[in-house]
């Protein structure tokens, strides 16, 4: 009896401790994306500085990087050079797309004029595309494989190392 009681008590306590440890150790703002492994939600948005629209279906055939950002977001300034440089280096093999929400076309245009651009930037006027991708804050980046499936999501400003590491998943 004593041994059974001890083992059962230990198992229950250990399970509670593990659940509390895992639960309390998590970043409360981190969103585990349920879209990983699923096709990227459809959109066709207007490109800044032109009257053309870009369709998510047109990204198929090559790995793609969709970066959600905004001009009012500090870390977006930090990661912008990384994205532009990487797009210039990998441009032939990987498609880069920026999606801006909660922002104005004038501010975006000004940002791109001042800091450079190497890929299309789209305007998500009502934030519905960001919602469909489960964006919880900016910057946030989604990595798509050539079949148009989301294979990874990165929260926060991208570094070159992080970009390469996540992109490797999309290249498989």
């Amino acid at each position, binding site marked *: 009896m004593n041994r059974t009681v001890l083992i059962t008590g230990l198992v229950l306590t250990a399970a509670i401790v593990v659940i509390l440890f895992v639960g309390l150790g998590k970043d409360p703002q981190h969103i585990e994306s349920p879209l990983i492994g699923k096709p990227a939600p459809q959109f066709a948005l207007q490109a800044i500085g032109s009257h053309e629209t870009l369709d998510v279906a047109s990204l198929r055939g090559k790995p793609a990087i969709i970066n959600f950002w905004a001009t009012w977001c500090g870390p977006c300034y930090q990661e912008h050079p990384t994205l532009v440089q990487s797009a210039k280096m990998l441009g032939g093999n990987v498609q880069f797309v920026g999606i801006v929400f*909660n922002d104005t076309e004038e501010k975006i245009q000004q940002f791109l004029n001042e800091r450079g651009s190497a890929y299309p930037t789209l305007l998500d006027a*009502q934030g519905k595309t960001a*919602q469909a991708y489960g964006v919880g804050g900016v910057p946030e980046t989604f990595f798509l494989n050539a079949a148009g499936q989301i294979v990874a999501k990165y929260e926060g400003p991208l570094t070159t190392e992080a970009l390469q590491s996540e992109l490797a998943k999309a290249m498989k």
Partner: protein
Amino acid sequence: MIILFLLTMLQVKVPDAQEFVGPPKGVPVAGAMLDQRTNEVAALLRCPVCQGLSVADSPSLMARDMKQSVRDMLARGYTQEQILAFFERSYGQFVLLKPKFQGVAALVWLLPIAALIFGAVVVFSKAKKLEEEPAAATDATPETVDPYVARVRELVEKS
């Protein structure tokens, strides 16, 4: 120029709820009822950029957009369950202020209850055992008496 702008706007397509949760299963809501239902449903959704605030309570731009989406969907006849499923599809259970009773969320509730029941069973069985063996417990008492005290008693009895 205006025609070009209008043509571009016609080509713009944002992800639609129908793509994710099918056609509306409810009745379109309008007027004051729409305001009320929007607040009720938005109160069930967590604002992704806030600390523990609902979409209904948060003043953030992200929450405002989400609340507008809730409003649009209610106006089109989507049910509360469909709206919650729409957001859950993108954000997972994180977005639900009342998580579903499944997986780890269920364990968080069940394990402490199981521990309480187990503890109660142990205490009850121990108490029962003590009740059943009062004599044994009494007999055991002299054995635990300090030998020094026993010797003192013996000397007192003799004198």
